[in-house]
């Protein structure tokens, strides 16, 4: 390839990544540091950290962030508890030709939009929903049990939104793990729980760590679940941020700063989790 062609061949994708992938983050960083937005024409923009300081000044914002982090952690833990036995089952108890199909079958409901999945949960959990209809017809309750509009419903919705980010890495790790390691331990007299705790889990800790990090980060950014299932009582940071972009653009610096605070808190916790889990993995090896 001639020099100019080679340059074009490389410059276009590098420019796309710089402008379309990194650019929006830089724009967000710039806005988060502005004292006032929009900047009036002819005025030199003034910068400050006041948007970040605002977060530490108001306990409501901090509580909403903490609530979000806790919910996302709980969603990752719940997803792991469901995904691990399933991934174990498909990788160990299903014939090699049928594994792909079993995995695809479980993943099929996740092809639908998250909005439709949340709507489906409303139909399951509402006062006139399927669960209450079953409870009523069994004579277990006379008045509808309020299942929607609470932390539990949001948690269920989060897991239903992000479950695959847990299932896929965990399955990949279990699928790579040779079967004979656990079999050797069984010959040495290790029981099934011992083998799970001392061998299978530590040797798949990389996949578990990847799953937890991905699921946790994805759950932090979930909007439809708290918007449709949370009601007013479940403040999450994603909604706080979205609301700041709702009406007047004067609140944008605050929203942008909060976006970075969520990203920073999320990344820090994700890194910590990954570190802890990889330690446990190495200790076992």
């Amino acid at each position, binding site marked *: 390839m001639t020099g100019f062609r080679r340059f074009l061949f490389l410059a276009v994708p590098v420019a796309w990544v710089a402008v379309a992938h990194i650019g929006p983050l830089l724009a967000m960083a710039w806005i988060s540091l502005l004292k006032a937005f929009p900047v009036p024409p002819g005025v030199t923009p003034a910068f400050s950290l006041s948007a970040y300081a605002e977060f530490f000044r108001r306990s409501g914002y901090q509580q909403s962030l903490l609530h979000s982090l806790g919910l996302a952690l709980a969603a990752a833990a719940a997803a792991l508890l469901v995904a691990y036995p399933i991934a174990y089952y498909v990788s160990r108890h299903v014939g090699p030709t049928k594994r792909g199909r079993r995995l695809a079958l479980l993943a099929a409901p996740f092809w639908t939009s998250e909005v439709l999945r949340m709507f489906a949960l409303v139909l399951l959990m509402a006062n006139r929903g399927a669960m209450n209809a079953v409870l009523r017809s069994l004579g277990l309750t006379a008045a509808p049990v309020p299942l929607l509009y609470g932390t539990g419903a949001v948690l269920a919705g989060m897991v239903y939104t992000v479950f695959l980010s847990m299932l896929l890495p965990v399955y990949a790790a279990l699928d790579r793990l040779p079967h004979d390691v656990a079999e050797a331990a069984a010959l040495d007299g290790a029981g099934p729980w011992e083998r799970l705790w001392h061998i299978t889990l530590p040797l798949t800790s990389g996949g578990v760590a990847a799953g937890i990090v991905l699921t946790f*980060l994805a759950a932090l950014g979930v909007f439809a679940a708290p918007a449709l299932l949370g009601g007013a009582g479940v403040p999450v940071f994603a909604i706080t941020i979205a609301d700041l972009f709702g009406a007047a653009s004067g609140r944008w610096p605050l929203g942008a700063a909060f976006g970075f605070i969520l990203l920073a808190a999320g990344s820090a916790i994700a890194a910590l989790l990954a570190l802890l889990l990889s330690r446990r993995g190495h200790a076992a090896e």
Partner: protein
Amino acid sequence: MTRHRLLSLVYWAAFGSFALPLVLIALTSLTQGDIVGFPLGPLGLHWYRAALSDPDYRRAFTLSVVLALGSASVAVVAGTWIGLAAASLRSRWAEAALMAGAVLPLGMPGVIHAVALRIAIQTIGLEPGPTAILLGHAIHATPYAAIMVRARRATLPTEQLEAAQVFGAGPLATLRLVIVPWLSPALWGAGGLAALTSFDDFIRSFFLGGYDPTLPVLILGRLRSGLTPEINAVATLILVVMGLACALVARARHLGVGTLTPDVAG
């Protein structure tokens, strides 16, 4: 109960919990009454007639389909270009840096990516609307295309490239006659995944949209403003269309396409 039976029970229970709520949408769409929920009351297709003649849903559906096809095309071109450029780099570090930048949109929580894109279009003076959504969806799907093309490109036998060179094919002819045909399963797979992801996307469309809502944005708006079974009819129709589309993608997988699992990053 044996371990096998117990684990298989967990699998099917999980599948049931994921699939059953979607069945409820279809079930409750068949009522004649005004109330979404149970008991169903007299059954009929009344709400399907209402949904199919509702101009808002028709417009939103058309917009969603156009955006899915448009953004998938842009994402496939951008992702292919990135994947091929990455494959051509001699320095491993340069390649890793380019691919890290390429997958960046996948690692961000959805709401943050959406907000960052909203600020970005404001910065370049683009109004919220279909063009902005198309760009946002394309950026979100580019990582899939880049990863799939990069992986597929690595399996291209060098003999084919050498043969093209021997016969005097220039770089563009080699691209057209050797590389693109070899990549085609990855291109169709990435394109299908990008189109479905765009069609499903809520958060980016919500922040980047103007006055015309996409289908998920319209549905969420209607859900928040009060339920009628019309939404169930629309949702059921979408589920059927998506089912057919997935069957097509699954068939494409038999041709060697990479992935059978939807967007995991949200």
